[in-house]
């Protein structure tokens, strides 16, 4: 009989399937970070003064801040002066997909997301962010008819400056944390969404992020506003080319839900995790994602499937300010080989009758280390607040780790809190049971892991659920514990 360890080893050796680099001419400013670099970024993007000033204010604040060290992650010091803070494909202002660089389209094809087909497919509008500048936007007209604004962040700054100015930094202030502050200073582009009163967005909004320039930091900024009674589902998916040097990614996402509005934000993240042997070269993903349920009966739901990156530091959170508002967090995170993830959520209950649900599923294989870190805070005024948290981890093999840090802070005695946590190995008994029915260990692990993640996958929009299942198979296929 082959030992389980052998099966693990042979299957964990699978290479990253989406590793390639597209050779597109791009305009990159030399590495380094100072006020003049920030002025250059702002200039290149023709930004108004208020935004430049906000960037500079953030930069000055960042200089005073220290990189956080409380995460259960280890990585070499990042030299912020060796990073180039701006990279944009040279070609601009495209009328149609025909004008998009054929090589870029080819890239999408390799990723299995042909833009042209997506236009026709299942009503998904794609705002493709390639490196830092949006180069193609589809379905714009249809969305426009519904009154929905879905565009690149830079375009929003030009076309809807009042909206941007009103909401930027209101959920994640520029002082928030080291990486969010850095992002506020140097962010290059991202997405902007505004759903007007009473509008149900006619399609899922989707952005594919790509990191394509060697040695270029990626600082995305996303702002989504759902006005009274509106509804939107937003999908974010990422893959990246193989690289030798570490690539820093520090995005900020801000969500604002007004009265009776719903925002559903789904992520499938599959950035290059680093060399399977050494862990070198993977993406560092330090992301700040936060939403506020500003008014009564609003709802924000985060769903994430994290399979990539060398280091993940990410806590999509909800501030439940409006009475009766609802926050949800559904997460599947996988760490394989040398990957490390410190991820979770924060639910801050301010309003009465607010409700939050946390379902976190962690899978560790190889030498992967994973931490769930979650905070549930019930403030004094949050009468009858309720939280349900469930954090489950499975371990595949004996060299990985799972850690759980739940923080609970309750300041109102009427709160109802439930917390469940489990950690288990993919049991030899489960594997043997499958084997005894003629099912191979590879298929068994895939079956068990997908079963384990089912509650979260059920929350994903259909097309993402399929992609997520596929990603799990690529990442873990056949690893046995």
């Amino acid at each position, binding site marked *: *009989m*082959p*030992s*389980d360890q052998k099966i693990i080893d042979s299957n964990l050796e699978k290479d990253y399937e989406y590793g390639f680099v597209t050779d597109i001419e791009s305009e990159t400013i030399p590495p380094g970070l100072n006020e003049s670099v920030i002025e250059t970024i702002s200039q290149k993007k023709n930004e108004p003064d208020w935004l430049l000033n906000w960037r500079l204010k953030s930069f000055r604040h960042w200089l005073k801040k220290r990189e956080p060290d409380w995460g259960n992650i280890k990585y070499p010091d990042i030299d912020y002066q060796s990073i180039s803070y701006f990279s944009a494909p040279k070609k601009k202002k495209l009328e149609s997909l025909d004008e998009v660089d054929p090589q870029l389209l080819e890239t999408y094809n390799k990723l299995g997301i042909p833009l042209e087909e997506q236009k026709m497919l299942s009503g998904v509008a794609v705002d493709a962010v390639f490196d830092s500048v949006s180069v193609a936007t589809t379905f714009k007209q249809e969305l426009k008819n519904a009154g929905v604004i879905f565009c690149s962040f830079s375009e929003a700054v030009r076309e809807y400056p009042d909206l941007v100015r009103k909401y930027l930094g209101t959920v994640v202030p520029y002082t928030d944390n080291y990486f969010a502050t850095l992002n506020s200073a140097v962010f290059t582009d991202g997405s902007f969404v505004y759903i007007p009163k009473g509008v149900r967005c006619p399609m899922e909004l989707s952005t594919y992020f790509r990191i394509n320039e060697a040695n270029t930091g990626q600082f995305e900024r996303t702002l989504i506003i759902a006005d009274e009674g509106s509804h939107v589902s937003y999908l974010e998916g990422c893959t990246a080319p193989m690289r030798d040097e570490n690539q820093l990614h520090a995005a900020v996402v801000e969500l604002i839900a007004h009265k009776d509005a719903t925002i559903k934000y789904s992520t499938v993240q599959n950035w290059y995790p680093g060399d399977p042997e050494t862990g070198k070269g993977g993406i560092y993903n330090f992301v700040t994602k936060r939403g506020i349920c500003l008014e009564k009966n609003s709802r924000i739901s985060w769903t994430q499937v994290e399979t990539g990156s060398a280091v993940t530091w990410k806590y999509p959170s909800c501030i439940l300010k409006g009475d009766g508002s609802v926050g949800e967090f559904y997460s599947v995170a996988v760490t394989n080989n040398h990957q490390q993830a410190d991820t979770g959520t924060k639910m801050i209950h301010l309003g009465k009758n607010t409700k939050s649900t946390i379902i976190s599923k962690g899978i560790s294989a190889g030498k992967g280390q994973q931490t769930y870190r979650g905070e549930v805070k019930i403030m004094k005024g949050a009468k009858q607040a309720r939280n349900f948290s469930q954090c489950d981890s499975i371990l595949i093999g004996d060299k990985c780790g799972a850690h759980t840090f739940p923080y609970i802070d309750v300041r109102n005695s009427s709160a109802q809190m439930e917390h469940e946590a489990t950690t288990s190995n993919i*049991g*030899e*008994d*489960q594997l*043997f*049971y*499958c*084997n*005894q*029915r*003629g*099912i*191979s*260990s590879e*298929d068994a692990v895939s*079956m*068990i892991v*997908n*079963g*384990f*993640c*089912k*509650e979260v996958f059920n929350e994903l929009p259909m097309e993402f659920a399929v992609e997520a299942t596929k990603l799990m198979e690529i990442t873990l296929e056949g690893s046995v514990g």
Partner: protein
Amino acid sequence: MLAIKDLHAGVEDKKILKGIDLIINPGEVHAVMGKNGSGKSTLSNVITGKDGYDIYDGQILYKNEPIIDWTPEKRALAGIFMSFQYPVAMPGVNNTYFLKAALNAKRKNAGKKDLDAAGFLKLVKEKLDDLDMDASYLKRSVNEGFSGGEKKRNEILQMLTLEPELSIMDETDSGLDIDALKIIANGVNSHRSSKRAFLVITHYQRLLKYIEPDFVHVLIDGKFVKSGGKELALELEKKGYHWLES
């Protein structure tokens, strides 16, 4: 069908089976009876190839081929099935999906095409009726939240669907009330044929009232101390195991 010759096996340095000889021909039902700790479960685990057991000596032949080096799934695909004493739960894994995956693995191995969803459902519904199980079984996760009786029925459902040639029933009667026992025995009996064989492992005689064995072997301390016909089971029921212990 199955030939075990002078089998010595154990876990780590602990010897559990100390020279087992057993020949099972097609169409036969063999019962192995023994007290806890006599080596019953080790015997079934060694035949099915569970990891963690060492074989010190002897041979296991299935259809005249030595199988000791075969993986558990190869043995399963070749037609060896075990109804588990403690079937494990697999949260989130749909029972139908699991059963279909198992059946299609077997069909693929036999060079047959996958059975489609409709064909599969029709097949399973028939088996469900035979076992007095309702269709809600198919929607549940494998063994999750199942009662003891439900788990055992689910095992038999799998057996009837996969149609193995050699079925090992590991303490299938434990935790069953008399009605469930009868239903399961009927399921097993309906599966009996001149081409199939059974190895029924049990502590008590009561299952053997409903599944009549052709041979009974008494396992004590890793050895068969006595073999005989079905009347041996009744004798054990009356006298206990004590009189056979040296």
